[in-house]
């Protein structure tokens, strides 16, 4: 494209065209540099609903309650989580291609810390599995405790990094996990699924709004 593209006769560049071009270019750049896209966040909402909903479907009819989650629910969860991790890694790589500087280094540190938090948050449940803890405890604990820890840690770290949307999202995840703790062994899965779905949909809507808002035109 040369300098004359989009210009009016006489070499003047129409301010209305300039406003439209500025808004469009800004929106395109925001989309290109945003790693956590609205589509990914919407997918995470579906994942949360399907994964935790699957757990709830597995345990809701158990009398007496055993806490056993069916293998199909675990298989679906593994597949969706792997897709989520792969897609997230790809989007982060794409958004950060060719970008360097202090903010980019902060973002890389944040992703590393949060990856560790997710691993640690769920790894601490391994001894529970190994010890074969009581079913009522097991039914309640894995639904709420890991995400409570990850959410609170994530909110504190995101606030320290001044990632306010992520801090809000992480805090909302912790709140959903805390609420799930009151749902009983089976109900906690459902509360968490619905809660996380709502949190991710909210984050997706806010991200989409932030990307699309105009710079010049209302």
């Amino acid at each position, binding site marked *: 494209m040369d*300098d004359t593209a989009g210009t009016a006769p006489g070499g003047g560049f*129409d301010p*209305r065209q300039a406003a439209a071009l500025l808004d469009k270019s800004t929106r395109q750049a925001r989309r290109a540099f945003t790693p956590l896209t609205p589509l990914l966040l919407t997918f995470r909402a579906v994942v949360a609903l399907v994964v935790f909903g699957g757990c709830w479907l597995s345990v809701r009819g158990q009398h007496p309650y055993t806490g056993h989650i069916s293998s199909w629910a675990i298989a679906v969860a593994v597949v969706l989580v792997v897709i989520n991790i792969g897609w997230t890694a790809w989007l982060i790589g794409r958004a950060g291609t060719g970008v360097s500087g202090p*903010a980019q280094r902060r973002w890389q540190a944040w992703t590393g810390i949060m990856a560790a938090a997710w691993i640690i948050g769920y790894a601490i449940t391994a001894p529970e599995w190994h010890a074969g803890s009581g079913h009522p405890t097991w039914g309640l604990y894995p639904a709420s405790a890991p995400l409570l820890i990850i959410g609170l840690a994530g909110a504190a770290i995101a606030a320290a990094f001044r990632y306010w949307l992520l801090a809000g999202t992480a805090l909302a995840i912790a709140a959903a996990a805390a609420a799930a703790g009151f749902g009983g062994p089976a109900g906690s899965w459902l509360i968490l699924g619905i809660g996380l779905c709502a949190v991710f949909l909210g984050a997706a809507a806010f991200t989409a709004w932030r990307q699309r808002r105009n710079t*010049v035109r209302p």
Partner: protein
Amino acid sequence: MTAELDPLIHVPTRLRIVATLAALPDGDALSFTRLQDMLGLTPGNLIIQLRKLEEAGYISRTKTRNGSAQKTMVTLTSLGRAALRAYTRALRDLLGGLDIDAPSPGNTVDEISAERMRS
């Protein structure tokens, strides 16, 4: 009083360059290759536009060499950010009172200003 648009930014290609770089956090740099890909410009055209912006102090370029490959990183300076903010304000002022969604084929900056004076 008519809002004045910075002539250095008020060019489609340079406006796109500045808007793209402004979407990055303050202090972050973008590689020449990525910028070129995002804007769909030829290397020659991009170099010319970047040179003009650099001469005005709106962007800075740093070159790093990794073996035989040379990498150019482009950053919007604080002066460039301030210039874009001022340009955006000027655009808003200029378009204020006008129906900004109406088609305006062929209007120049002066014609827009005159239209605003009349309204």
